[in-house]
């Protein structure tokens, strides 16, 4: 960095000297164009965020529930997959040796590739190496995801994921704020469903369903109620279809 004192009379920034066409001052010319790139990027990012809610993490953490199949975030999957290839006493290789060598190689890149030329075609060994490493990482990530999905499907009895009711955490009835309790749907719920699911749908004999609308839409709840499951009779014991529809309509408004 050039330091020093400000020399009186010198311009604060160099005037635009077009010796090389295409070059331009960083400030403000280039930065303004960069901002446009940034703005477009940010817009795309925000659109993605608006239309993709954060996935549900399976409710409040429960250390007693050992049936939960854990999986790391997608960007750790390749590391996770490497571990699977070194089970038992070989785990040291997977946990220490392979990541350590990988890290060392990555840090040492400038000293491994000491050729003067920079064009990727002029240094095939380096270019081939990074292409291979990238493909391997992508393959390991995909392999880990495929295996995890198969595990989850097997645990749910062969991919019948949607058949099971969403598991909401049990919370005290006083913390539940039901929406629209003046709705005729709630009156039916109170007289018919509350015996099992509780006055605030907090769950008693039946599971808690106070926020079922956050996970399932009207049609999903309707089909579940119509079919029934386990101790839950078809239509939940209600006699007419209009009664079921009213209750389901009210339930789908409960988003927790």
């Amino acid at each position, binding site marked *: *960095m*050039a*330091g*020093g*004192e*400000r020399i009186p009379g010198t311009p*604060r*920034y*160099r005037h635009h000297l077009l010796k*090389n*066409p*295409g*070059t331009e*001052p*960083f400030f403000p010319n280039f930065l303004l*164009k*960069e901002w446009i*790139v*940034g703005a477009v*990027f*940010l817009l795309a*990012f*925000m659109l993605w*965020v*608006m239309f*993709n809610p*954060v996935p*549900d*993490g*399976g409710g*409040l*953490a*429960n*250390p007693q*529930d050992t049936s939960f199949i*854990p999986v*790391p*975030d997608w*960007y*750790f999957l390749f590391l996770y997959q490497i*571990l699977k290839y070194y089970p038992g006493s070989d*785990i*040291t290789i997977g*946990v*220490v040796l392979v990541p350590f060598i990988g*890290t060392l190689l*990555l840090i040492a*890149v*400038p000293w491994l*590739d000491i050729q*003067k*030329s*920079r*064009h*990727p075609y002029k240094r095939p060994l*380096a270019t081939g190496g*990074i292409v291979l490493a*990238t493909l391997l990482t992508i393959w390991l990530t995909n392999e880990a995801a495929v295996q995890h999905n198969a595990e989850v499907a097997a645990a749910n009895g062969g991919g019948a994921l949607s058949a099971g009711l969403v598991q909401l*955490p049990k919370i005290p009835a006083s913390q539940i704020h039901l929406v629209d309790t003046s709705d005729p749907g709630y009156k039916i719920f109170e007289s018919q469903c509350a015996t099992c699911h509780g006055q605030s749908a907090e769950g008693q004999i039946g599971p808690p369903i106070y926020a079922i609308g956050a996970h399932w839409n009207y049609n999903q709840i309707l089909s579940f109620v119509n079919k029934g499951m386990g101790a839950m009779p078809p239509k939940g014991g209600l006699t007419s279809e209009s009664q079921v529809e009213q209750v389901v309509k009210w339930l789908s408004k409960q*988003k927790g």
Partner: protein
Amino acid sequence: MLKKAYDWIDERLNVTPLWRDVADHDVPAHVNPAVKMSAFVYCFGGLTFLVITTQILSGMFLAMYYTPDITNAWYSVQYITNEVLLGEVVRGMHFWGASLCIIMMFLHMLRVFFTGAYKAPREMNWVVGVLIFFVVLAFGFTGYLLPWNQKAYWATAVGTQIAGSIPLIGPYIQTLLVGSHTVGALTLTRFFAIHVFFLPAALLVLLALHFIMIRSQHIAGPL
């Protein structure tokens, strides 16, 4: 008026040399997407920094409502998502931004690699970049536990067990991270502290080094 204000400050703080170092330089044609469209690959580093900035800002706003203890963490995240004005958007930004940061950083790294931009005299900058990469991964690991949901809990339980299986120092690392025998209240507090104090401090220092080196070593010439 603006010039007078600048001069007034400049006379007292002598900001002009600093200003010259930061902003007064020409950008070569080969990194200018306005000259050659394919030069957009040179934007990946800047866009990674933009994502990191949005992560810092959204994280600051999340910290206004988030409570890092095991009885309230999950409910505070539910509260942010369902009750706070635009809370769902801010949480979404922080959640998706983490993945986007990794993707942009990876693309930036590939660009640097393919253009051979790590070659002399820029070796140190590559090393600092790799360190930034590890710090960002650590952000991901520590941030994952904070919502205190099933996924977070079990992924962290497994992750810390893996750390514990390292020979000799493993158990010490595991104790340092977990804070007790099992993943619980102390783990959440530690991960929160690492996520919001230790790692941001490390990241800001490394980013400063990264940017200072870009300025002092200049942008590499065209291929």
